[in-house]
């Protein structure tokens, strides 16, 4: 029997305020799958991701993400959905008032971790995975853009999520750094079986790291097996 999808939307309409952004969205993402979400600015990529991590309420249609029914999500239950997800932002969104180690520590404490030794172990583990083991004491503004994005990814990996949602994670980075970040994300998907949905409009990245592509255009999500660069 096939494993049930990590994220699934059926006949979903996505609204921003009262404007319909995407209509009749159907998609399913399996375990360990790497999926690009492409489309011009303003076509609803971010809105789709925000629906998946519960920042936009699901008003119409059915949706399940890492076992959570999106239509049943409330402000009380949304933190528990997010603990099973890793969210990576274009602008990093690290806690600017504390260092890298404390940034990661905050996430662990806020998601119910108590054992200090295990927390320390986990922080060192994820920093090692993203190649920043020696930078835990640095404040976010002391890091380069690529390093900050790595911290962001390390943060997303803390609770060993089944799904990472990345909103233009290479948007603010130069091409070499972008390549590093992409390799890291692919490595995570391959090594840990973590599914990744990544919104981007960086076609060079798609060329270098080909994978399944979902395209947002004219209020629809089109599921392409491959991307056309025409």
């Amino acid at each position, binding site marked *: 029997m096939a494993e049930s999808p990590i994220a699934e939307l059926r006949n979903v309409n996505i609204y921003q305020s009262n404007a319909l952004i995407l209509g009749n969205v159907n998609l399913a993402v399996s375990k360990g799958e790497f999926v690009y979400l492409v489309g011009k600015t303003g076509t609803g990529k971010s809105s789709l991701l*925000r629906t998946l*991590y519960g*920042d*936009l309420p699901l008003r119409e249609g059915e949706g399940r993400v890492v076992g959570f029914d999106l239509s049943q999500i409330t*402000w*009380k239950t949304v*933190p*528990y*959905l*997010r*603990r099973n*997800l890793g*969210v990576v*932002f274009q602008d990093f*969104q*690290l*806690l*600017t*008032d504390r260092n890298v180690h404390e940034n990661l520590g*905050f*996430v662990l*404490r*806020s*998601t119910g971790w108590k054992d200090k030794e295990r927390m320390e172990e986990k922080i060192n583990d994820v920093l090692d995975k993203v190649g920043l083991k020696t930078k835990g004491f*640095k*404040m976010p*503004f*002391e890091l380069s853009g690529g390093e900050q994005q790595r911290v962001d990814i390390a*943060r997303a990996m803390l*609770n060993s999520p089944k799904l990472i949602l990345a909103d233009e994670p290479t948007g603010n980075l130069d091409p070499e750094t972008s390549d590093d970040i992409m390799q890291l994300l692919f490595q995570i998907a391959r090594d840990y079986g973590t599914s990744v949905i990544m919104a981007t409009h960086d076609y060079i990245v798609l060329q270098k790291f080909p994978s399944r592509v979902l395209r947002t255009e004219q209020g629809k999500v089109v599921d392409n097996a491959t991307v056309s660069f025409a």
Partner: protein
Amino acid sequence: MTQTGRLSAKRSKPSYVMAVIGVALVLFLLGLAGLLVIQANNLKIHFKESIEIQVILRDNIRSQDAQALEDTISHLPFTKSVSYVTKDQALQNYKKDFGDDPDTLLQYNPLYASINFFAKADYVNADSLKNIENYLTQHDIVREVYYRKDLVNTLNGNVKRVSVIILALSVLLALVVIILIDNTIRLAMFSNRFLIKTMQMVGATRWFIAKPFDLRSIWNGLISALVAIAGLLGVIYAVEKNMPEFNSNQNLVMTILLLLCMILIGICISLLSTHRSVMKYLRLQLDELY
């Protein structure tokens, strides 16, 4: 790099420092108004008990009779303090006050002996003084009872007016304090809106996010109140030194109560405003923060 870090950490603090100073200043003003309300009663008593009532005696009376009346007056419930001024003393006082001697001009002392007394504040109003006057003029040796009737009426009118004004000002000030503190704190919290949102994005519950902000606001409210109280105690000390009639010990319980109220108001407003702001940013969606 470390240098930059330190500088930046310093830069991120002023919003809290300014909020604490702002709250302390408005609490200080509120405390000052409270102190004024408490001391207004003291001042009212002080002014009322400064009005002298003169019981002017007839000429050619025996000094024993005068002293007997002085004794009677001193034991009456309305009397605060009493003194007997003989004709000679009255003349001496006159010479001292006006510099000339009516005795030389007229060849006799035209002044009367009198019993001068100060009444307790509760009795210094037109009706009570009229009764006192009627009672005293019944005595044969009393020629008339004299006091500044106009001053009594003006004083009572003014005290009432000032009390109403102080009360109205205090209510207005309390409102201003609440709005100002709320605004100052909301401004400080505005700079934390992305921090709050990020915490929410990584799966922290609302309670977990709000708790450290709330605890900090309690601490900040307490510091503000203590700063304001220190300022107020300084004012009390300075005023007591220069105005002996201003005695905070007379209203020690009320003053302590006022200081406790300042702590309570400081903490409560700081906590409520902070919690409200955090909750507001927690409820907003990500794109509404920009």
